[in-house]
């Protein structure tokens, strides 16, 4: 091969390689590395989106604010004789929580906290207080979302993959149908599902009414704190199940047909073939899918943003939504950054744990 002199020397120049990867490096640095580093940095400051005051380093204060929780045990009010006071319904009377969390010099560690949840312990009432109630709700909602979506979505996707992995006429139509929600923008899907979940004339209510011969009372799925998060969970599972189905499918198709044939001759029934041939053959796929779904589930944002805005009464608050709301709507960049950092650490910890639990044992 003979190439002209100048070109050759350019290719051999030590900077040539760097020059070639420069665009990628610049883009990755600008949009991935820099925001990541900045978020870490901001989370230790009191940075506002727009503020006349200079930024100050505040140490761990943002995290203390977010994660601060306390426990308060309340004893029932007693009258002078020492017996508990009961109201007209016979319920015990407890002192007000505010008396402990507002300017009470005996309980400085509970200052500014609000009641999160509680339970009765004998006659006493145990309360868990949180300094940032909305964040705590976002955290628990996110964990519920992940805990439900990860297993249900991966199992459902596997089921679909097993079904469409058969050699049947027209099976590609089903593959296409199941995959379709994945290629539609999540914002569009969310808008459509708002109509489905509508409290008056929603498709779901109409369908349930029809199926129950009118016995079913319409529910405002997204407007009810008891159902809103579950409505989002169901819709999210439906939306991405096709994507994971395709990954399962690719895993299924790497398993040689002869293994199934050998198992069949040796007397394996359908379940045994799945148990001894399919499932072991899908090991690596399963690890991948579990990690991917977990991460995607933690990143839940668009559905909440479009469908509920975190409501009603914070029942669909989730971490990413909370980070965005805090950072931009409340202009508290430092608080938003701190949430992002916490989210990062949670996802990192879970991924490492998953990797460890599903490691190749030799």
């Amino acid at each position, binding site marked *: 091969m003979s190439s002209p002199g100048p070109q050759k020397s350019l290719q051999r120049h030590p900077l040539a390689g760097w020059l070639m990867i420069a665009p990628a490096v610049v883009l990755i640095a600008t949009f991935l590395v820099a925001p990541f580093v900045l978020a870490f940095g901001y989370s230790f400051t009191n940075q506002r989106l727009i503020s006349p005051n200079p930024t100050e380093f505040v140490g761990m204060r943002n995290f203390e604010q977010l994660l601060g929780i306390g426990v308060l045990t309340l004893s029932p009010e007693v009258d002078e004789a020492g017996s508990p006071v009961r109201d007209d319904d016979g319920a015990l009377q407890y002192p007000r929580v505010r008396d402990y969390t507002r300017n009470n010099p005996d309980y400085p560690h509970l200052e500014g906290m609000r009641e999160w949840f509680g339970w009765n312990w004998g006659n006493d009432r145990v309360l868990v207080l949180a300094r940032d109630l909305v964040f705590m709700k976002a955290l628990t909602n996110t964990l519920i979302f992940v805990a439900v979506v990860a297993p249900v979505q991966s199992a459902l996707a596997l089921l679909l993959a097993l079904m469409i992995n058969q050699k049947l006429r027209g099976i590609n139509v089903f593959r296409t149908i199941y995959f379709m929600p994945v290629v539609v923008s999540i914002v569009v899907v969310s808008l459509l599902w708002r109509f489905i979940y509508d409290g008056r004339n929603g498709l779901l209510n109409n369908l349930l009414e029809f199926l129950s011969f009118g016995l079913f009372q319409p529910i405002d799925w997204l407007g009810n704190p008891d159902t809103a998060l579950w409505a989002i969970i169901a819709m999210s599972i439906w939306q991405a199940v096709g994507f994971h189905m395709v990954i399962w499918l690719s895993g299924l198709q790497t398993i040689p047909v002869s293994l199934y044939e050998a198992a069949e*001759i040796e007397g394996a029934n359908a379940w045994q073939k799945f148990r001894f041939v399919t499932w072991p053959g899908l090991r690596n796929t399963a690890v991948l899918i579990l990690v991917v779904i977990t991460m995607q589930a933690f990143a839940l944002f668009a559905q909440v943003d479009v469908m509920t805005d975190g409501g009603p009464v914070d029942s669909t608050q989730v971490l990413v939504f909370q980070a965005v709301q805090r950072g931009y709507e409340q202009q508290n960049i430092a608080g938003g950054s701190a949430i992002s950092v916490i989210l990062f650490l949670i996802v990192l910890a879970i991924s490492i744990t998953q990797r460890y639990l599903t490691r190749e044992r030799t």
Partner: protein
Amino acid sequence: MAGLEFKDIRKSYGNVEVIKGVDLSIEHGEFVVFVGPSGCGKSTLLRMIAGLEDITDGDLFIGDKRVNTVQPRDRGVAMVFQSYALYPHMTVYDNVGFGLRLNKTPKDERDAKIREAARILQMENLLDRRPAQLSGGQRQRVAIGRAIVRNPDVFLFDEPLSNLDAALRGSMRMEISKLHQQLDATMIYVTHDQVEAMTLADKIVVLNAGVVQQIGSPLELYNYPANLFVAGFIGSPQMNLLPVTVEAVDERTVTVASSDVPSTRIPVASARGIRGGDSITLGLRPHLLAHSEVGGITGKVLLVEHLGNETIANFALNSGEQLVAALPGSAELSNGVTLSLGFDVADARLFGTDGTAIPVADRPFR
């Protein structure tokens, strides 16, 4: 233990018929080889015995039970696959014992059977390994072990040696042959390699395009091919097939000649259906040609291959046909030399206009 009976077995995929009516009976303990070129239907036939393919038409009996609709696991067969089909996540021990585990054989009995199979196949030292840690030959051994422990009525082998290198193939071939004697089991073996067929089989079934061409012992097929296909398929180097014209016919002989072959009277058992002037085919095994000073077929040497024990020579004949001769020892031949080759008329085979063999005179057995 059982024999097999095929009665007009057919297989179609849609409108395409791939097995076009096979009739065959296999005795208990026989080693039967299905041989034929790629796509001839031999593997399909085997898979129909195993129950992995449906039988479109006809009846298949294993023992005296019609098994057309019987599940593979209830047919009493074990199969060894070309790709070995070992379960990658199980040890050799578990692979071999998988079928026993499925049918809930007690643990002690299972263990005894696995170790017995390992002993027969000399792989006791491999039991703790996984398939990925084994060589091709070892994997095939495990696959055979998996078949042995189930103590099947019929062993099915689907090109088991195709993925092995030549040397290993030779030794595994001998082991399978030994195994057959040891186990006294019916074995059906599919291959496209006629050497495997010749060395292993009690009975060879030659298939082409879904039709049985000939069934017989290896030597029967070699010496008395039923038609042009079998003549060309069995034997290496291939039988020479030369076009000739019938000059004269009487009850016990056919006289043929061509521009290459001098007029030759060949004895036959019956010349029925042959007429003077017919264009038929003369088949001559390369090993049965010998250098002769007078008469015979004259050709110019094109290519010489010295194999030490014999010399394979390609000749160009006057008509443009080619002829291969296997001459004993290291014959002194060089390219371009013209040579005359003779043959014993009793060794010549004739194939009629439709390609089927004209019965040979003095055939020692049928």
